[in-house]
């Protein structure tokens, strides 16, 4: 949890006094970006509910700060508590007595029954279908890999590495699709993280204002006016956008601008959608081109601003650079072309494959497990491509199966052997 909290004097979590409420900020330790202002309470062992060190964070209400902070602490090594876990720990550490302990068992039992029922209901739906087809695929891959190790001397037909690679890539794709439903669900609940980027003075703030229909950002003709990011929420036909206007990107600039640019880059990492703004009345600059490189792989919309002026921008070059992206020409100051832009944004966020019924991954715990499975599959695919021996591929395939098992509570060990014995003629 290093670097997660800083109070106004820059004091860190370690220095916060026990049993005092401290005002400060939750900070992303990687980017240094402030996530939210919070009240923090540290209760050092043994003077806490569980008799262990406890940290309580009181943040702003709402899903955005909550999820962001939760994601950060999980990234730092924490995990969501099981039902009744705090009480269980309190008991195991001797803070509550026997009668209370009986209650704990009830809590665990009833909660797990309820959550089991809930989970079952959840499982009966799409998630269980998806996970079990993933599971089938993985068992199939594992059986091939393990058979080639344990029965290499036998006359059995093991699939080629090419097929193994294709199957593994298919699993990875399935995992990614599932993960995408989490993002989509999050977009519906919390809004889409929409980032406006562009070099200085292309009219980012004007666009934000035009979309907001109010004067939120300070608009001046001086390049680089917006030094910090500005975040606003708008609603396009029921889809929430959390629009973030970023500091303009300019290569030669002072310290503040370098910081601003760094933050912009960080924001881009988590963006659901990126609006790249260009100035139609000027030719592409070095800065424009470097931004174009940065956003190449993003969920991108290109906005050419200032149609009210003479257009000199190399529009064909942009089309060539982004053949599959939409380009919208607008005038932010004269509020022209905005409706078409809004439609475009909406279209980009409404995935035709994902409807609100098909949102399967809603829990952070499931998402965490899927992310691990995804990393394992990426490793496995790398091992296959590097022509590593099968046991190294198996290490990651098994780890991926274990991660999926965390979602469904199933183990796989016997399934792989069963699959081997049913698919291959084994035995001398």
């Amino acid at each position, binding site marked *: 949890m290093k670097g997660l909290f800083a109070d106004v004097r820059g004091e860190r979590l370690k220095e916060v006094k026990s049993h005092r409420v401290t005002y400060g900020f939750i900070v992303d330790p990687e980017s240094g970006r402030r996530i939210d202002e919070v009240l923090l309470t540290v209760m050092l062992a043994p003077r806490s509910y569980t008799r262990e060190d406890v940290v309580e964070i009181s943040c702003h209400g709402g899903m955005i700060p909550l999820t962001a902070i939760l994601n950060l602490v999980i990234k730092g090594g924490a995990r969501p508590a*099981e*039902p*009744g876990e705090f009480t*269980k720990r309190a*008991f*195991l550490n*001797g803070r509550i007595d*026997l009668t209370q*302990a009986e209650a*704990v*068992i*009830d809590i*665990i*039992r009833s909660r*797990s029954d309820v959550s089991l029922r809930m989970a079952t209901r959840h499982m009966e739906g799409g998630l269980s279908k998806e996970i079990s087809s993933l599971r089938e695929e993985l068992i199939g891959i594992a059986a091939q890999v*393990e058979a080639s*190790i*344990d*029965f*290499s*001397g*036998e*006359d059995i037909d093991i699939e080629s590495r090419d097929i193994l690679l294709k199957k593994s890539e298919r699993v990875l794709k399935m995992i990614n699709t599932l993960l995408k439903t989490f993002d989509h669900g999050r977009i519906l609940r919390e809004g889409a993280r929409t980032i406006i980027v562009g070099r200085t003075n292309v009219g980012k703030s004007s666009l934000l204002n035009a979309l907001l229909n109010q004067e939120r950002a300070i608009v001046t003709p001086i390049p680089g006016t917006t030094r910090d990011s500005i975040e606003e929420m708008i609603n396009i036909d029921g889809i929430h956008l959390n629009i973030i206007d970023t500091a303009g990107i300019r290569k030669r600039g002072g310290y503040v601008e370098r910081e601003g640019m760094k933050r912009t880059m960080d924001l881009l990492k988590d963006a659901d959608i990126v609006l790249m703004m260009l100035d139609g009345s000027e030719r592409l600059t070095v800065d424009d081109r470097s931004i174009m490189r940065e956003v190449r792989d993003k969920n991108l919309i290109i906005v050419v601003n200032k149609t009210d002026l003479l257009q000199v921008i190399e529009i064909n070059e942009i089309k060539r650079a982004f053949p599959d992206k939409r380009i919208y020409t607008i005038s932010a100051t004269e509020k022209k072309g905005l409706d078409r832009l809004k439609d475009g944004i909406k279209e980009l966020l409404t995935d035709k494959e994902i409807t609100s019924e098909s949102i399967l991954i809603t829990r952070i715990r499931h998402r965490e497990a899927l992310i691990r499975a995804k990393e394992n599959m990426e490793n496995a695919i790398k091992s296959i491509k*590097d022509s*590593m*021996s*099968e*046991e*190294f591929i*198996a*290490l990651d395939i*098994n780890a991926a199966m274990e991660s999926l098992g965390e979602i469904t*509570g199933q*183990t796989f*060990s016997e399934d*792989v*052997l069963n699959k081997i*014995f049913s698919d291959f*003629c*084994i*035995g*001398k």
Partner: protein
Amino acid sequence: MYTYDKKYDVIVIGAGHAGCEAALAAARMGCTTLILTMNIDNIAMMSCNPAIGGLAKGHLVCEIDALGGEMARCIDRTGIQFRILNKVKGPAVQASRAQADKLLYRIDMKSVLERQDRLYIKQAIVDSILTDNGRVKGVATDTGIIYISNSVIVTTGTFLNGLIHIGLSNFPAGRAGEFPSTKLSDSLKDIGFRLGRLKTGTTPRLDGRTIDFSVMDIHEGDDPPIPFSYSTERITQGQIPCYLTYTNEKTHRVIRENLNRSPLYSGAIKGVGPRYCPSIEDKVVRFYDKERHQIFLEPEGRNTHEFYANGLSTSLPIDIQIKFLRTIRGLEEVEIMKPGYAIEYDFVPPTQIFPTLETKPVKRLFLAGQINGTSGYEEAAAQGLMAGINAALMIRGKEPLILDRSNAYIGVLIDDLVTKGTEEPYRMFTSRAEYRLLLRQDNTDMRLREKGFKIGLVSKDEYERFLDKRNRIKMEIERLTNISIRPSRITNDKLLEIGTEEIKTPTSLANLLRRPNIKYKDIEAIDGNGNAIDERIGKQVEIEIKYHGYIKRQLAQVEKFKKWEQEKMPQSIDYDHIPGLSLEVREKLNTVRPISFGQASRISGMTPSALSIIMIYIEKIRRTKRARDEKA
């Protein structure tokens, strides 16, 4: 009844691969040991294929050796062909396999037993196990002799109520041509054991003089042959080949047309057979469209014409065996010396024993080998060794030796058996070991030599040799990590010659060794150090450095695993009294009686919330007890 006047520390029933290791370990650890066998000329008999080792099994053999067992040394002395399997794969899944001269192996092992101090060998059939107040006190034989002992190890193989099937006829037998052990089975039931029934089978043995080897592929051993044991310098005896041929459509047709005479398909066989070792009739039926099945002809010894037809396990009647054999290329004129057969036998479902292999109902009674539902000489020997060790440790009042899943394949084997039980004859596979990359055959001494020395099975001399090796590996790894070479012309020429890229910045030798196509030998050349290091040490250095990343990952997994293994479960818990456990979980817990939370978590059907409930219950008991103590 006559009670023999000598009292033993350990009695071992059966002198197969489990029995021999058990008796040797106990005697070597200072116990007065008696080994009882139905036929003294069949000690260490290989009932099935004439080979030791194989994938995952070779690992077991080397682990037995590292702990001070005999199997590896015996096969090194009597093997007739040695091979390393999976040579094209990574080090963790390579394993040794050797063809054995069956007769020599038997004689060699018998003479090791005979030369062992404190070990007595007697021919006798054990009818019953004698107990007193839940504790074993000796055995009674069919000739009316009672032998008294402090502990008993039962290693009866397929002999308990053995029933041989050939075609639709069957007869009681422990193995072809040998008596079964029927009364002992009843005795075990009387003591309180639940018995199950398994099935296994073997292939016809063929007369080599009637085989046309000239039409078959020849399979030679490795040159030079690599020994199993750390004590064997080199294999000096010559090697002889095996031969490969195939079944064909004609063979399959003969088998299909005669399935009505197979005890497997008529329903005569009730026991569950191993899926990884199906009979030829099973293969032909289940894999209908497979055009041919490979048959390895393995010599049963140097001085015999007998050949083992690996791949043709069958219980079809003899006339059909002859008929289908003669459809196979090279076997057109073949004569059978011994027919193939299936055998059913009783076993004790192994959730009834502790990880020490001591039984739960009867103290100081140990079970090892096929009686626990395993299959294979190596699996049997491994359990025999552990039973012998733990019987001896118990008699001396010492802590038992329990290997865990991160220590050894032996640990995986026993943990699987006592935690999950088995539905079919259990065989070891590398895929059963979740820490496979750490449990390599090449590092068995690093994992187990120290343990073998501590219990007194590894001599001081051998141990010091091991310490020296371990130290030299460590120093060499440090040296390669610390020494960097500069990108000079000479160095880069050498690198290009080896077939790898040039270096542009100073690079440590260890980092060079991590490159895929560089071997430890190449490092010696680049380094110019030239202090040629022992090949086995060089190999360890290479593996440890090359696979460092993977090894580190598995070590991290092991650390997580150990945490739960160290959380002990008291043996006095009555799971029926824990509220909130499902009936299924409660029953399993009562049978398995896990020794740690880790073991409990591996019971099939266990849930995280059930584990939480148990944890709380245990803490509650502990606190009630403390409160009572404080009052008193």
